[in-house]
């Protein structure tokens, strides 16, 4: 098991290409540092994110999952993030309800210009997930042995 000192969480982020992905880009241009533990998956819209993506990430051993889209009202496709908000709200509550640690999930609205917000959120999320340690719940292990 990883010691607290060396442990670095595995974080999968689903970013909307029109805003939060742009914010990550901008953060790079501005040379803003944020933790390297985040693997960004660029998606067309937060509205295109199915809960099964998030569960898939958890199954495969992600310690934290981050979804970020355009602020409500600013969707490139007009209403994609409005649908995402309803869907992901229910899903977030469901995961919380079954005991998945709240801090392993982060849902944000980050516009393309908000590189600083992205940096802040990234730092806070990585710290929070690192504090929880490696994910144990819903993580697929291949070690099972039947006698």
């Amino acid at each position, binding site marked *: 098991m990883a010691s607290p000192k060396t442990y670095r969480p595995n974080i999968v982020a689903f970013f909307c290409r029109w805003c939060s992905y742009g914010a990550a880009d901008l953060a790079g241009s501005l040379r803003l540092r944020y933790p390297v533990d985040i693997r960004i998956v660029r998606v067309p819209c937060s509205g295109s994110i199915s809960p*099964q993506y998030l*569960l*898939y990430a958890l*199954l495969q051993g992600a310690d934290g999952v981050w979804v970020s889209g355009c602020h409500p009202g600013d969707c490139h496709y007009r209403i994609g993030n*409005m649908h995402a908000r309803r869907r992901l709200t229910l899903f977030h509550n*469901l995961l919380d309800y079954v005991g998945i640690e709240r801090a392993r999930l982060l849902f944000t609205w980050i516009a393309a210009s908000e590189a600083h917000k992205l940096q802040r959120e990234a730092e806070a999320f990585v710290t929070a997930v690192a504090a929880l340690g490696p994910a144990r719940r819903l993580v697929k292990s291949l070690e099972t042995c039947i006698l």
Partner: protein
Amino acid sequence: MNAYARRIREIARRLLSEKAVDAVAGYRAGTVPMRARPFVARTPAEAGELTWTGFCVGNLAKLAIGLPGRVAVCAQGCISRNLVGIVRENRLARENLTVIGVPCLGMLDARKILAKVGGRMVTGVREEGDAVTATGADFEETFARGDVKRDTCLTCRHRNPVLVDEVVADPVPETGGGDGDRIIELWERKKPDARFELFTRTFRDCIRCYACRDVCPLCHCATCFVDRSRPQWLGKTQDEPDVLTYHLLRAFHCAGRCTDCGACESACPLGIPMRRLTAKLESDARRLFGHEASLSLDAKPALAVFSPDDPDEVFS
């Protein structure tokens, strides 16, 4: 034979002999005690086989979807809502559907009855008003209906059909219990660790037969996510993460559309209370979006619509 069954046969016979419908989806007597069988009557003679008992615990909306032609369906409150849902989803045309409305007193849970009689072999069950009498080779015991009703019927809010073409009986008072949130309180009170432990324990016995999915009229994907291979969203094993992920996703796919008919729980061979998950989603849909699934043909499912003022509580 009870009054409901008599009336259902009358209606079915009339609809079939007048050729108002091609088929009537209902139930006939089961081959073993405490069971009823979904049945499609296509002739007035077959209508004579229709029956109604507290063990009609499937979901006939599911059966109706696959039937060609004009179909009449016997439906309690929850099933009528499913019919509304499938009409809304264009899986059954309203003009091809006749709803035979069955005001519901709550359906029975064979497991509860078996528990009440201490596992002795039940050879028959009689229903008289609020009294449910189980008989065996050497015993006869009577219970209050409320004690042997299915869990879902204890929190029912819509015992009377919301869409009716033919009426089996006068509406019954809406005294089912009505508080769907009671189911989720069991877990919500607990701390996350305990919640996960309860979640795991509740679904531990699952054998992934998918009866819960297959009995449910909300499921309609041509290829279910569990059957997809590119990507394969979850493993096919009985390992805990695969099983739990299956149930989370199955429940979520019903979010905003579930009528809490309880067919999933009734179909489960292990008696897993999977409404623990669906009830949470519907409770949130009510609380956050003021939404209750399929109460009228005009209402869209909670996740098919949005409001600019939807709560932002999980976003930062």
